[in-house]
């Protein structure tokens, strides 16, 4: 289920003195089963962009086509689009409201008008996917820890059975173990179920580790959309946009600059480690 965005524009408070262009002339295409990272400094338009992908915001110009359906088309059923494209907002645990975890996860599928059996199957399935034990089902979501709450919230979106999942900083505010756990689950979901994922993150390390392609936003424009390697090789441009490259990348680039013949197109710690060992072996120091 590809998503195609053509010349998308969005202006907040149009016609008032507070008018602000949030997105200008954005075009791209995300293919089936891709894992795309979306980066950009705060206020660069990332959130505005992702809200267009499932029709929460409507374009002021251009079009967004989800699986052949134009979201500006009034005859298109929005629920259908929203069941295809799931969005997990930042701090999604604040959207929990039901008495029990089970009911909260079931809220989405219930809105889709599914029958009890299907809902039950989905709830159990997504709970397993996010690593939530069934013993939590009858608890109030407000009794859970932060990390558990977030799992419930993500499960609530997954229960819509979307073909594409957009996550806005899903790991923000979690402890290191919690964040790795959540991100690995998402990666697994992408690999096993072929889910298309768009991950918004400020952590270049996470993006480098997980994404296949990266979108770079700056001041409402899509500045780059390329493979991870190509993006992180443009570190000077990135830092001029208030962004960074992964630390491993910086180390490798620094080594190369100082005349050490290592590959500088490396962006994860594991690969950097291997490459340095290879180099040391080559020069006979290890």
């Amino acid at each position, binding site marked *: 289920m590809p998503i195609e965005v053509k010349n998308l524009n969005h202006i907040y408070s149009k016609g008032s003195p507070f008018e602000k262009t949030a997105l200008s002339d954005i075009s791209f295409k995300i293919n089936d089963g891709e894992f795309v990272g979306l980066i950009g400094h705060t206020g660069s338009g990332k959130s505005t962009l992702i809200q267009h992908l499932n029709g929460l915001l409507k374009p002021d110009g251009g079009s967004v086509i989800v699986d052949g359906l134009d979201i500006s088309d009034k005859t298109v059923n929005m*629920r259908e689009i929203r069941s295809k494209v799931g969005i997990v*907002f930042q701090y999604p645990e604040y959207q929990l409201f039901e008495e029990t975890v089970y009911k909260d996860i079931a809220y989405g599928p219930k809105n889709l008008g599914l029958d009890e059996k299907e809902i039950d199957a989905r709830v159990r399935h997504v709970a397993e996917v996010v690593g939530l034990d069934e013993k939590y089902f009858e608890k109030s979501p407000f009794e859970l820890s932060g990390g558990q709450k977030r799992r419930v919230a993500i499960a609530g979106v997954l229960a819509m059975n979307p073909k594409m999942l957009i996550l806005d900083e899903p790991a923000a505010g979690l402890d290191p173990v919690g964040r790795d756990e959540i991100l690995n689950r998402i990666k697994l979901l992408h690999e096993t179920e072929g889910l298309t994922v768009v991950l918004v993150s400020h952590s270049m390390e996470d993006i480098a580790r997980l994404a296949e392609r990266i979108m770079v936003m700056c001041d409402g424009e899509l500045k780059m959309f390329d493979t991870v390697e190509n993006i992180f090789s443009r570190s000077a441009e990135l830092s001029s946009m208030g962004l960074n490259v992964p630390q491993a990348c910086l180390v490798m680039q620094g080594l190369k600059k100082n005349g050490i013949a290592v590959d500088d197109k490396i962006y994860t710690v594991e690969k950097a480690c291997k490459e340095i060992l290879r180099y040391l072996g080559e020069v006979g120091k290890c």
Partner: protein
Amino acid sequence: MLKDITLGQYFPIESPVHSMDPRIKIIITLVFIIAIFFIKSLWGFVAVALYVIFAVKLSRVSFKLVLKGIRPILFLIIFTALINLFMTNGEIVNIGGVPLKAGFLKITKEGFYSATVMSLRLVFLVMGTSILTLTTSPILLTDGVEKLLSPFSKIGLPAHELAMMMTIALRFIPTLLEETDKIMKAQMARGADFESGNIINRAKALIPILVPLFISSFRRADELAVAMECRCYRGGKGRTRLNELKIGTRDWIACLSMLTFMAVIVLINMYL
């Protein structure tokens, strides 16, 4: 969608009216309102209109914006005018020898007059208060209210606490709107529908918004209380402020203009 709701009416520009002391502005507005209710003749309203036009020009706020305040109470104005027009006893108007009377409804000269006076009163009332709220930021407004009420703290009126509550409430309205917008979107992303269905279904659809909103409001209130206590907030007693309100020449001139206005109104009432 919720971002389009403007909070209060404050129109942030610079003008002699904007930089006036909020206390003086509040007092002048109060006096103005009282004056409006003293006026008996239509000539008085000419004076009021001139005064309002003068104030609006001075404040550099567009007339459109000032008049916008009337829209929400337009129904009230029309309703009052009609009641006055049809229900006042007096000399019944004849048009071509036909008296305008049907059952208990009648149009009288007195009714016509009082309908006009009543609607003008309401219109100018709203315009006058609009000038106050358009030119004074909510924070200054509460500061002004606090100062004006502070003499009453001797008889047990918690002026500072009231003002602090107002300030906090105002401060959190945009935050809550933003939060509501966020929660709404999150639930819409889960297939919630707030726009269709009958009243009961729509009310039910609000639960997924209200529960998270209440929870986060309580959390925020708690955090704010802790943050205030961490900075040694102990209530109003002995508390100094960063920006003291000062009454300057401009404010005295404004008071003078108000007094002149009052004198004109009294003279009109006496002689016209």
